[in-house]
């Protein structure tokens, strides 16, 4: 995902005419990837010290599993019900991560510092998407274990390899679109309302593909019949939204 967006971004940003401030970049400016790595390191350091997003998201998933236990009045889940509960919970937890993604930039004015730096703005999207991807992966490790212990009827282990593949594809899509939605909502007055309202419809195709592909895995039998088609849909979604987000993101920051 990263190679394509970085390469075709470089010439476009430098050759855009009549935008003071971005054109006269010094020749020794760091590459998009180096900048993205630096911003990502900063975000991870903040997350490690404040422990804001990942613990909250993890706690949220476990709480929602408990809610589903009482709401459905079931001790164990399997098949379509298990798949739906798992994916809806993970996507709702992603909403928390997305709404906190630009929190330090918004609340403490960090965005001004980033905008004053003579670097490619797409790097900011790349770094935020990478951070969100890592948060989601960390949350899912704990959430899957909790789900297997608390709710899941059949054994999780045989389903795990395929499930990991699906989680990877979904995380890329959520990271790409989540970083864009977070930046869109960051400048609005009601950002905590806009993020869930905008993100949840946008991830419906991911939910359809992931939940349908997971359903046979969590039924106990190993019939992954339409897996290739669902993975194809997930990949298509990832490619389209990575490209779109990388292309339009710097327009959000041109001030």
């Amino acid at each position: 995902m990263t190679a394509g967006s970085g390469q075709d971004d470089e010439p476009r940003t430098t050759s855009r005419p009549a935008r003071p401030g971005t054109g006269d970049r010094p020749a020794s400016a760091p590459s998009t990837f180096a900048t993205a790595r630096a911003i990502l390191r900063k975000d991870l350091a903040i997350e490690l010290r404040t422990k804001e997003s990942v613990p909250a998201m993890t706690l949220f998933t476990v709480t929602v599993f408990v809610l589903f236990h009482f709401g459905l009045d079931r001790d164990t889940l399997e098949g379509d019900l298990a798949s739906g509960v798992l994916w809806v919970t993970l996507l709702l937890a992603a909403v928390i991560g997305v709404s906190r993604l630009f929190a330090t930039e918004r609340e403490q004015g960090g965005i001004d510092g980033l905008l004053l730096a003579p670097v490619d703005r797409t790097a900011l999207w790349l770094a935020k998407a990478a951070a969100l991807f890592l948060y989601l992966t960390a949350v899912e490790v704990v959430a899957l274990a909790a789900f297997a212990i608390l709710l899941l009827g059949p054994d999780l282990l045989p389903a795990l390899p395929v499930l990991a593949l699906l989680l990877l594809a979904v995380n890329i899509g959520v990271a790409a679109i989540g970083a864009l939605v977070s930046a869109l909502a960051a400048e609005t007055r009601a950002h905590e309302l806009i993020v869930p309202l905008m993100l949840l419809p946008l991830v419906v195709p991911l939910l359809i593909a992931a939940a349908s592909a997971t359903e046979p895995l969590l039924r106990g039998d190993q019939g992954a019949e339409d897996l290739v088609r669902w993975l194809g849909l997930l990949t298509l979604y990832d490619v389209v939204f990575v490209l779109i987000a990388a292309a339009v993101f710097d327009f959000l920051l041109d001030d």
Partner: protein
Amino acid sequence: MFSRGIKPFAIAAAAMTAISLALVFFYAPLDADQGFIQKIFYVHVPLAIVALLGFVAGGIFGVMHLRSGDRAWDARSYVAIHISIIFGCAVLVTGAIWAKAAWGHWWLWDEPVLVSFLVVFLLYCVYYPLRFSIEDPDRQARYSSVFAIAAGAFVPINFAAVRMAEAFTHPRVLSQTGGSMPGEMRLTFIACIVAVTLLFVTLFKLELTAKNASAQLSRLRRALEPEAAA
């Protein structure tokens, strides 16, 4: 500048609506299965097609705005999405009425077009809170265009996903609008699409003109105000 051609479009839209309504009620044959209620199809489907094209057009206008920096394109993007949302309400209402009359339920989850339309409609409803909670006009235009582009690209992907989810459980041999329509029905259907498209363009132009006029008015007011105060 936006008002050019609005009168001929309005006349054409009115004439075409009258003609297509006449075709619907007096020319198109009654559907063998569903009888009279099937005629809501001539309103429901054209509205849905035009609304979806309007959403995609809003995305294309957004691209034009970001490329050119001309705020007029953002106004076009906004008005296209605005009218598509209004058409979208009509699509959901007529769809529910049709579903109730034909199948006995107000809502059917195994009707992929209706379901994906609902998801798209829910997404576009966020356009208003997003747009109107940004005060700086330049930023408002840019953020709205970015949303219009991302959402415009979402429309076809969402339709593919919902249709795939249905395709495995309910194989559909022929789509509702498929090639099996008899000639009279098809002619009426095409006339209805033309009428709804003309209606969309007329409303689009009307809304743009009104927006433009009120913006001009407030500009003039602001220009006059210091003199009045002095």
